[in-house]
């Protein structure tokens, strides 16, 4: 597949020729391929786990123009895997941090920054300036948006996603190839599939998958090899197995099929039911809550309150408040261990699982159960700074 930009416009200086010499001597790249790389314009959506290795390698390889889309700031918990960002960058905009590193690796790369959340009204306009889009986002709504905007603007979407120690990669929206909706017509309802923040992720996994994305981007630019079109690569890092599934183009696909019904970007938050999730949260707001300060005051006064911790045992090992541990998933089968006549305060990490536990306990006849607002994280912030946050 040829890149849309005109590679003949690119020339390489002596310094660049030396820098890319290991490419230039390969028959699959040569001077011609390196000029294609320099002429190419690639957009990285997200500069996090996947975006870090992706952008670093594309910059090192000499992709001429890299666009970066991110609105986020660097957080301490990002550093375990988002290798674009260093400890000293915590609190900075990811874009500022990313641009420093990419410029340091290769000052010849032009970087275009998009300090924004990609949405239905800006996606097509941003994508218009690029040849290839690489999706390193972290939620279903943005993934369907990137897919649709790629199909609508005729640009390939080099895709990867990760969960714990498994990943998926493919190229969607290539000419005559399937799109993400051909693979998964609809997103899961909110809450059914945990995010990395909820489920965790092995730090090197986005490295593996982001490097697959970078490889596919470079192959598309060079027109070399067999692109990952119509194939889904599944990576299981724990077993260290790579499998491959066939993806067919769905003739009834609402965006890339023969009679498309999606002709412009839609409301993806509604499509993914995120609005419904907010409604769920307001329903859970009716669950009785106790503030950490109030619980501490009453506990210190010697009141008889049973503290129930509904996290997992491996979380209890990180930090705990001496609560009685019953993981949320085990609560239905172990509820008989608890005395329903007592007063209960239930906590988890941040308050979501314990809200479900309180709802379950109240339905099971525990009239005096309440949810510790903000979980052990709020306790660490507001009561006891010696409790580690995770």
């Amino acid at each position, binding site marked *: 597949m040829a890149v849309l930009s005109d590679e003949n416009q690119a020339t390489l200086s002596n310094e660049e020729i030396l820098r890319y010499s290991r490419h230039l001597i390969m028959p699959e790249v040569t001077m011609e391929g390196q000029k294609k790389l320099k002429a190419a314009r690639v957009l990285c959506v*997200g500069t*996090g*786990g*996947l*975006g870090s290795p992706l952008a670093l390698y594309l910059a090192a390889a000499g992709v001429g123009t890299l666009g970066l889309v991110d609105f*986020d700031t660097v957080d301490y918990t*990002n550093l375990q895997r*988002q290798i674009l960002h260093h400890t000293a960058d915590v609190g900075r905009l990811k874009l500022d941090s990313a641009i420093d590193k990419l410029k340091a690796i290769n000052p010849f790369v032009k970087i275009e920054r998009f300090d924004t959340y990609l949405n239905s009204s800006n996606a097509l306009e941003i994508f218009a300036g690029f040849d290839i889009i690489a*999706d*390193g*986002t*972290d*939620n*279903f709504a943005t*993934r369907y948006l990137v897919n649709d905007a790629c199909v609508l603007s005729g640009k390939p979407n080099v895709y*990867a*996603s*990760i*969960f*714990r*120690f*498994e990943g*998926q990669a493919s190229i969607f929206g290539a000419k005559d190839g399937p799109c993400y909706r051909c*693979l*998964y*017509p*609809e*997103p*899961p309802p909110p809450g*059914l*599939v*945990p*995010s*990395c923040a909820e*489920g965790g*992720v092995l730090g090197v996994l*986005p490295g593996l998958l982001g490097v697959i994305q970078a490889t596919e981007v470079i192959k598309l630019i060079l027109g070399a090899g067999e692109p990952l079109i119509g194939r*889904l690569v*599944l990576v299981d890092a724990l*077993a260290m197995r790579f*499998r*491959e*599934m*066939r*993806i*067919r183009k769905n003739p009834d696909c609402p965006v890339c099929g023969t009679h498309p019904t999606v002709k412009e970007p839609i409301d993806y938050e509604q499509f993914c039911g995120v609005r419904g999730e907010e409604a769920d949260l307001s329903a859970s707001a009716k669950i009785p809550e106790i503030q950490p300060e109030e619980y501490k005051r009453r506990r210190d006064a010697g009141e008889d309150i049973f503290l129930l911790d509904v996290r997992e045992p491996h979380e209890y090992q990180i930090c705990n408040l001496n609560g009685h541990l019953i993981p949320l*998933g085990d609560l239905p089968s172990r509820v008989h261990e608890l005395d329903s006549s007592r007063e209960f305060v239930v906590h988890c990490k941040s308050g979501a699982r314990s809200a479900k536990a309180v709802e379950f306990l109240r339905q099971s006849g525990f009239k005096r159960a309440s949810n510790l607002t903000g979980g052990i994280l709020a306790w660490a912030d507001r009561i006891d700074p010696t409790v580690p946050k995770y």
Partner: protein
Amino acid sequence: MPIKVLIPTPLRPYAGKQSVIEVTAQTVGEALNDLVAQHPDLRKHLFTEEGKLRSFVNVYLNSDDIRYLSKDATPVTEADTISIVPSVAGGA
């Protein structure tokens, strides 16, 4: 006949934490039925209330999506492997 079903990470908590489960079946539909009979917690993650396979869960016989074979009626042999591959969105 016995056939292997590969369980992806997000669904393992509902499948006794196992990555491979052996079922007995002549078709893919029978294999999935035996799977949820052995692990009832999996049911709501694989099927809608109407019993339809959820649209964010793909089932492959070896490397082919059963939607493009004979769906539930796709025959299986002992040499086949069924893979369940749900969509995941993580990336940051």
